[in-house]
Each structure stands twice: as structure tokens, then as C-alpha cells.
């Protein structure tokens, strides 16, 4: 019974979040639906980030590159390819991009991997920017995008998919393989874990969803500025949410997203600089003092409780 109690709490939190987010477009005004949409966006981004970075310990500071590529693809193909095709195509293209760069990139380890992914995302950003400038396009505007409710439920589907993906990976044999290479890559390889293939697969899996999220968010904003869809602060926010939550299953990111997502809603528009400072402080404090995140704190409290 004692073991069941926390699980019941989690089930309740998931159900409550799900129910609120599902009901929102029918009962709330456009502003609140927008808030719900951005929570769903962060949920999908953070959960998909965890598939690579939490599971393998290869911390990516370049998750935004897939988001930006997805947005760019939908904008470029707008009114040439039907949306129902363009969004999954964006996901496929990002997965293909991950597969292409994955082998050399995943050879780089530790802090170098972190800064390499940042550099790669910036490289793609500035390349797209230079390409757009060369073709004389400063920004693009989309006409005839679907209305907010449709966009909202597309994002809802992506968030669900991301949670399902991370939950599946976290429980599967594949996930245990990823965990083993996180602890010690050489030892995992000796024991027969196909390290290179697993890392690459995790990277590819984590790339598709953010691209589709970027594609859907491009429909929401209806205009496209390269610097915005490739903003490195999106990657930083994702990392901060995941680290804040902690753990390597879908629960930690949920906590991080609910907390930081609502905070960003309060601050990002009105005081973006203050929001960034809070984000930086959270990063420093959690890396230094609470490396296991909120989930780790909860578990430690639970472990201590029977003794008291």
C-alpha cells in the first residue's frame, strides 16, 4: 500500500493535467488557450529532449535546431504541400537530419557534446539566416492558417506522443541499454549493448517530435523570423525544465514544465530579461545543489519518511 500511494498521486496529477488541458479550448478565452498551448509545446519539447539527453547523459544544448527546421520546412512549403503531409514530413526531415549528423556528433562526449550541439544549432540558424538574406527574404508571413483550436489539438497530440515515447523508452529493453551506456559506455559495450546504434536511435527518436512542434507553432504565430524559431533560449528553457524536474521518466519533465512553463507565461512577455535571469539562476542552483531535480527531492523525502 505504501508503494502504491505515490503512484496514485502521480496518476492523479497526470489525469488532472490531461483533463484541464483537454477542456481548456471549450471553456477558456483565447489567452488561456494560448497558455495551454505553450504548456503543451514545452511538454512535447522537454519529453522528447529527455529521450536522448536524460536517458543517455548526452546533454544536448541544441534541441531548438529540430524545432527551427520543422518551422522552416512548413513555412517554405506553405500552400504548396497540404498541411496534413507537411507536418509529418517536417518530423521525418528532422529525423533524417539527426541520422545524418548523429554518427560524428555522438562521438563527442561530456561537456564537449553539450557545447557542440549548441554550436551546431547556431550554425544551422546562421546558415538559414544567410540563405534567407541571399534570397532577399527578411521574414515570411503565412495566410490562411488553421484556427487556434485546431493548432491546439495538433499540439495536444504531439505532447501525448512525446510522453508516450519517453514512457515507452524509459521502460523498454532499449531504454535499459541507454541507461547502461549513460553509466559507463565502455562497460555497456563490453556487455553487448550496441552502443553506437542505440545512441543514434535515441538521437533520431528525439528529433522528430520537436520538428513537428516547430511546424505547428509556425501555424500559431503565422509569421516566420529565423532568429525566433532558432532562438537558443528555447534549448536552454528545455534543459532548465528537464533539470528542474529530474529523473529519467516522463514524471520529472511534467513537474519542470508545469512550474517553469507557468513562470515563463508570467514573465516572458512582460519582463523577458528578468525571466532569463531566473532561468540562469535555476540552472546554476540545480546543477550545483539539486542535481537530481524536484523528483530526486521527492524521492529522498519518501525514502526518509518510514524512518521518522
Amino acid at each position, binding site marked *: 500500500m505504501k508503494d502504491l500511494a505515490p503512484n496514485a498521486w502521480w496518476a492523479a496529477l497526470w489525469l488532472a493535467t490531461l483533463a484541464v488541458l483537454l477542456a481548456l479550448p471549450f471553456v477558456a478565452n483565447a489567452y488561456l488557450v494560448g497558455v495551454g498551448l505553450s504548456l503543451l509545446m514545452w511538454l512535447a519539447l522537454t519529453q522528447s529532449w529527455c529521450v536522448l539527453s536524460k536517458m543517455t547523459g548526452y*546533454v544536448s544544448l541544441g534541441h531548438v535546431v529540430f524545432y527551427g527546421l520543422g518551422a522552416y520546412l512548413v513555412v517554405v512549403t506553405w500552400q504548396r504541400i497540404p498541411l496534413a503531409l507537411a507536418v509529418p514530413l517536417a518530423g521525418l526531415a528532422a529525423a533524417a537530419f539527426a541520422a545524418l549528423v548523429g554518427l560524428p556528433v555522438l562521438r*563527442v562526449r561530456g561537456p*564537449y557534446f553539450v557545447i557542440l550541439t549548441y*554550436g551546431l544549432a547556431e*550554425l544551422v540558424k*546562421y546558415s538559414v539566416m544567410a540563405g534567407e538574406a541571399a534570397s532577399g527574404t527578411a521574414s515570411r508571413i503565412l495566410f490562411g492558417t488553421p484556427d487556434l483550436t485546431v493548432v491546439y489539438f495538433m499540439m495536444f497530440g504531439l505532447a501525448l506522443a512525446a510522453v508516450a515515447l519517453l514512457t515507452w523508452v524509459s521502460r523498454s529493453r532499449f531504454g535499459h541499454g541507454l541507461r547502461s551506456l549513460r553509466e559507463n559506455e565502455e562497460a555497456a559495450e563490453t556487455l553487448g549493448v550496441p552502443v553506437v546504434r542505440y545512441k543514434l536511435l535515441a538521437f533520431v527518436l528525439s528529433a522528430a517530435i520537436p520538428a513537428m512542434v516547430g511546424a505547428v507553432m509556425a501555424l500559431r504565430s503565422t509569421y516566420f523570423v529565423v532568429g525566433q524559431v532558432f532562438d537558443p533560449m528555447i534549448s536552454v528553457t528545455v534543459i532548465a525544465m528537464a533539470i528542474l524536474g529530474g529523473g529519467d521518466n516522463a514524471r520529472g519533465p511534467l513537474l519542470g514544465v508545469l512550474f517553469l512553463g507557468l513562470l515563463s507565461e508570467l514573465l516572458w512577455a512582460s519582463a523577458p*530579461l528578468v525571466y532569463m535571469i531566473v532561468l540562469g539562476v535555476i540552472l546554476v542552483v540545480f*546543477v550545483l545543489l539539486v542535481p537530481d531535480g524536484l523528483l530526486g527531492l521527492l524521492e529522498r523525502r519518501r525514502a526518509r519518511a518510514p524512518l521518522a
Partner: protein
Amino acid sequence: MAVIDTLLSGQLLFAALVTGTLYALVALGLNLVYGTMRMLDVAHGDVVMLGAYAAFWAFTGAGVSPLLAAPLVALAGAAAGVALYRGVFARLIARSSPAQAARLEANSLLLFFGLSIVVQNVAALAFTPNNRAYAWAGDVIHLGNVSMTGNRLAALLVAGSVCLVVALFLARSVFGLAVRAVIERREAAQVVGVDVDRVQWAAFALGFGTAALAGVLVSALEQFSPFSGFPFTIAGFIVIILGGLGNVTAGLAAALLLGAIETYGVALTSANWRSVLLYGCFVLALLLFPNGLFARRLRA
């Protein structure tokens, strides 16, 4: 033919030299801080940015010329480095177990990245996020058939001589030997009697001082904002990866190479491609040396 003429002009060579020398100065400090502490200090470029602001206020507020401000700002930067080392890092190291220290090293990038975000945005709150610039020594000087502005010549001379002096100091003096020993093997250096603590605080002083000095020089050449420090960090990393950790002389050569790639690349394409070139070099350097900055040390 026009392209060839541009490429062979002394003007471009001079521009490449200025950029390369400034990168060398930034990389020098990063090399010392990173090498002796083994923490990826991505906030290094923010010290450059703060140095630029210090020079800006000194010039616009009190009319102090950047040449005069340079030693003062560098000293202030060095003092800040020592204070940061004494106040935070020395305590952190003394307090943590070897396992914790290893974890700290692995997480140092996120830690400094968070710190960098805080510094940049606090600076943006305090100084506004707008670009700043001031005009100093913009007169054109003709040397042979190369014409240059006084501020660029001053930046080249100051940054170049500081780099050379520090490189000579590290190569020839006993203390320089101790610094290089700590960079290569901290524990072994300690065993043979190197005062690691002293080397580390000196590295912080020198590292932060040179970064602040680079900031002063940059501020006299181009406009800057609270967010313009990061590209210098990236350039510094490229230089260290190519030149090798702790190898200041090879770093000077690598910095000049990077300056040349950037300057000639932009001349051949357009200013829009500057960042593409910089990040392209960075990604390429890391992919070619996947063990990062340790590649050379392990091979040796």
C-alpha cells in the same frame, strides 16, 4: 581580377591580423582558466563584454582614452578574477570530494552557461540591451600602401604585445613552467611541489585580466551589446581546440588562422556569413578532435 586584388591587398591582411590577435588574447585567458581549473568557462566572453562597457563608460563619462583605461580595466578584471577564485572556486574545491569534483567538472558547462545568462541579462537590465559604440582614434594612417585607422593599429599593438609577453613568460619563467605543469597534470604537479592554489589564482587573475583588456580594445573598434561576449567564447574554444590545451604559442598561430578564415571568408562572401564561418569552424574543430581539448594531452 577584382576579387584577387581584394584578397591580396594589405588592407585585408591587416584586418585579419587585428581579428586574429584579439582572438588570441581572449583564447589565452580561456586557456589558462580552463587548463588549470578543468571547467568549461563559457562565461569568459562575458568578461570581454564587461571590459568593453567599462571602457565605454570611462570614455563617454570621463573622457578617458581607451589606451589609458586599458591597464586599469585589466587590473580590475584581474582583481575580479582573484575574488571569484578565492570567494567561490577555492571553497568549492576544498569542500567537495573527488567524486563531487568530477561531477562538477562534467556539469561545469551548464553551470557556466547559467552564469553567463545571468550576467548577460543583468547587464541588459542595467545598461539596456542596445548596441553601444564610441568614436576614438578613427583617423586613417597610411603605412606603405596600407591604410588603417589608429584604433585598429593600437588594438593590434596592445593585444599582440600582451600575447607575446604572456607567451614568453609561460615558456621561459619557472612560474610559467608550474602553470604548464598544472595544466598537464594537476595531481602530479602537486606531488613535485607546485603550489597549485597559487597557480590557479594567478591563472584566474591573468585570464580575467586579459579578457577585460580584450574588451577594452574591442569596444574601440566595433559596436557591442550585453550579448556580444559569446562569439568571443566560441572563438576562444576554436583556438584552444586547434592549438591544444596549455599550448599558448600554437594558440597564437591558431588564432591568426581563425582571424584569416573569418576575414577572408567574409571578404569573399558577405557579412551575413561571418557567424556561419565562425560556428562552422567550431563544429568542424570539435568533430575533428572529438576528445575535445584533451586530444593532444592524451596522445603525448
